[in-house]
């Protein structure tokens, strides 16, 4: 037990850089104050986002009381929390378990595999509890107050909360371990492993959505009916997945109406959670270290003939293009980078697509929705624009562009590439990934309701333009304070406060931008809304472009000191 706690602390320290923080306090004051500043500014920046979330959820609850459907409220929150924990958790699990270099140092030590797995899992769990608290506790409180619940509700909801991150995370960990095992044993390349993981995640999501779509209003009779249909329709399916996700029902039964039976439900919820942890550790104990050891071989390429070499080398490209290609390759080929910066453009549209295919919207409702949006195209457009900016802004690709190069960044600083080419190349990569997200989203949205070409063109262009200031802001940050001294690529993106700052500043900025131009567009004149949007974006672009363009070469000289 002591060993597990020590290891867990070590992993948390490592991913947060606690030791470095105190080292800086003693020996590097400048760096220390920078860190301290971000430590204060990040929570402050979080407050409005959190406030917005709480009011959105309160509004949802209020909406549900109007149609007498409050019983689904907790289920919505539960599923939201679970899905978010899975989406973010995959990244954490993969980087903590598979792409972190500390494993190589730990393997030779006399620590049992089981302890290693448990402590790594716990170190992830700590972060996920904080995350889950922000997402799920407001929901529990809103419902509790709304329904006038008492002390027992408080106790039970606390127990439910305890299980929230554990269950999806342990199951995800088990799945990922199995996937990585089969991927690494065959000497697959990084990219293929990623594909495997995505397929696994897609399966999980399918299951999740399938169940929730069958959930209906979430009451008992429906579930019985559902179970019956499953049983009669497809026995095999039930066996394999039936026990995987019924927990949202357990949660709902526990908390929707507080009776004595609630205690039984919560006990089974806790039991299932514990069981899934045991399962995860048991699976890990069989496959984890084996696949780590065999996964370290780098696959070599085919030998090239002289003609092939000259074909590759013969094409001369522009400096900006060279930077673009290099940055993109690093992003796609380094798994951690891929997960942090690219995966969201695949996962988000996939979620849309899956939710559409599993939640059957009655045709007349769909038509109603379509007519509603057709009557107010500006609403639909700004909604889509916000979603597209989300791809550009949240992945914060430019905010770690220099950091990601780490110790090889001497090359970037030594070569004679103009600041303009650096900006174009690096921002271009972020825009390219964002464009993929936009294309995927458009394809997915077409399934719900086909949008006119004009909408697609306007939203794509404005979506990219609107996120450009955020991208340049990220680049500006990374130019000023790159994180280069890492021994493990996950630190370049995970421990990088540039990313966090860009994320929050980007969200706040997007909210304001969309809010102001959307309101103007809606209440005054649609054209005015778009014009304001373009104007604000263009101004910020020019400002940040000039700032970077002027300073970049000089800042390169400061990267090492």
């Amino acid at each position: 037990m002591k060993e597990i706690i020590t290891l867990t602390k070590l992993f948390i320290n490592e991913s947060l850089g606690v030791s470095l923080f105190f080292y800086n306090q003693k020996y590097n004051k400048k760096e220390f104050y920078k860190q301290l500043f971000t430590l204060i500014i990040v929570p402050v920046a979080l407050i409005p986002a959190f406030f917005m979330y709480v009011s959105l959820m309160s509004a949802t609850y209020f909406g549900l009381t109007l149609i007498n459907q409050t019983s689904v409220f907790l289920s919505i929150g539960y599923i939201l929390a679970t899905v978010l924990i899975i989406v973010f958790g995959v990244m954490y699990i993969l980087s903590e378990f598979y792409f972190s270099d500390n494993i190589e140092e730990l393997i030779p030590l006399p620590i049992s595999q089981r302890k290693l797995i448990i402590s790594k899992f716990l170190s992830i769990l700590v972060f996920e509890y904080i995350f889950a608290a922000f997402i799920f506790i407001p929901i529990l409180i809103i419902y509790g107050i709304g329904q006038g619940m008492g002390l027992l509700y408080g106790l039970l909801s606390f127990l439910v909360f305890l299980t929230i991150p554990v269950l999806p995370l342990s199951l995800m960990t088990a799945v990922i371990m199995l996937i990585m095992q089969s991927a690494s044993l065959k000497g697959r390349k990084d990219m293929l492993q990623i594909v495997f993981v995505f397929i696994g995640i897609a399966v999980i999501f399918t299951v999740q959505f399938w169940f929730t779509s069958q959930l209906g209003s979430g009451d008992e009779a429906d579930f019985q009916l559902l179970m019956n249909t499953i049983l009669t329709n497809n026995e095999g399916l039930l066996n394999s997945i039936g026990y995987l996700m019924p927990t949202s029902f357990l949660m709902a039964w526990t908390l929707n109406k507080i009776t004595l039976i609630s205690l039984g439900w919560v006990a089974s919820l806790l039991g299932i959670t514990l069981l899934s942890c045991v399962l995860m550790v048991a699976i890990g104990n069989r496959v984890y270290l084996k696949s780590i050891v065999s996964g370290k071989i780098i696959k070599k390429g085919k030998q090239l003939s002289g003609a092939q070499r000259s074909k590759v080398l013969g094409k001369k490209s522009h400096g900006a293009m060279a930077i673009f290609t290099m940055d993109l390759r690093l992003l796609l080929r380094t798994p951690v980078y891929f997960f942090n910066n690219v995966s969201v453009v695949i996962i988000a549209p996939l979620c849309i697509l899956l939710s559409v295919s599993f939640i059957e919207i009655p045709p007349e409702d769909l038509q109603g929705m379509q007519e509603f949006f057709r009557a107010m195209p500006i609403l639909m457009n700004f909604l889509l624009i916000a979603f597209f900016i989300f791809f550009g802004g949240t992945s914060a690709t430019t905010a770690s562009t220099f950091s990601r190069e780490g110790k090889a960044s001497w090359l970037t600083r030594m070569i004679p590439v103009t600041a303009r080419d650096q900006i174009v190349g690096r921002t271009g990569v972020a825009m390219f990934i964002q464009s993929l997200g936009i294309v995927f989203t458009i394809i997915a949205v077409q399934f719900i309701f086909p949008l006119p070409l004009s909408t697609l063109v306007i939203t794509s262009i404005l979506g990219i333009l609107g996120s450009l200031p955020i991208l340049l802001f990220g680049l500006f940050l990374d130019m000023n304070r790159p994180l280069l001294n890492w021994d493990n690529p996950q630190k370049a993106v995970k421990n990088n406060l540039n990313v966090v700052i860009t994320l929050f500043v980007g969200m706040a900025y997007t909210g304001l931008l969309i809010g102001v131009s959307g309101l103007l567009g809606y209440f005054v004149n649609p054209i005015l809304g778009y014009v304001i949007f373009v104007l604000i974006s263009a101004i910020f672009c020019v400002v940040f472009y000039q700032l970077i363009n002027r300073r970049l070469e000089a800042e390169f000289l400061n990267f090492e000191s």
Partner: protein
Amino acid sequence: MLILEHISKTYGNKNEKAVDDISFEVYPGEIFGFVGPNGAGKTTTIKMIVSLLAPNSGKITINGIDNQADILGAKKQFSYVPDNPELFEKIKGIEYLKFMADVYQVPAAERQERIERYLDIFEIKNAVNDPIGSFSHGMKQKLALVGALIHDPQLFILDEPMVGLDPKASFELKKIMREHCDRGRSVFFSTHVLDVAEKICDRIAIIKKGKLIEVGTMAEIREKAGSQESLENIFLELTE
């Protein structure tokens, strides 16, 4: 070709100068060796020349271009291979070479001709399609050398180039350095291998604790030291 005037540099600790008021000149057509004990300030000096660090004071001119006034212009004049070239592990050798050729805007015909020649010389032709992560230390160094030679720089700067190279490669590298200078270009490199410095360098600078203690041809250094001994012995005496 390369002129350093009163260059000084301190890292964090303000009282300890890593490089202390260094001035010297590298002429066109010469191989210039830079020697000194560990921690003397060789790498620091080189980093200031190649614009990886800013000096606290002083001026560096490369082929007539002030490297603080026109950073980009100065960068085009040289190429640099660090003592431990960290390269992008996920990138293939050939992709790295194409990148270097592109950023220095080397014309298609020349880049192909040069890359083929140097790949042959350093015998890494067969590995060029592999990710750099699978390269051995010496192979990485060879790839960095090929990448640095693609644009046929006016000034070729190397930090400890002989460490890690096999005998054949270090022989070939010395030959390349000589040929480079015979065409009127210059080579500036730091080394701990004093025999090499003595044999191939036209002039040598000795640095100790950030201060330049000797600059000149082998003959000049011998004369000053008042002995006909090898560079090794003189070095040991001077850096006592």
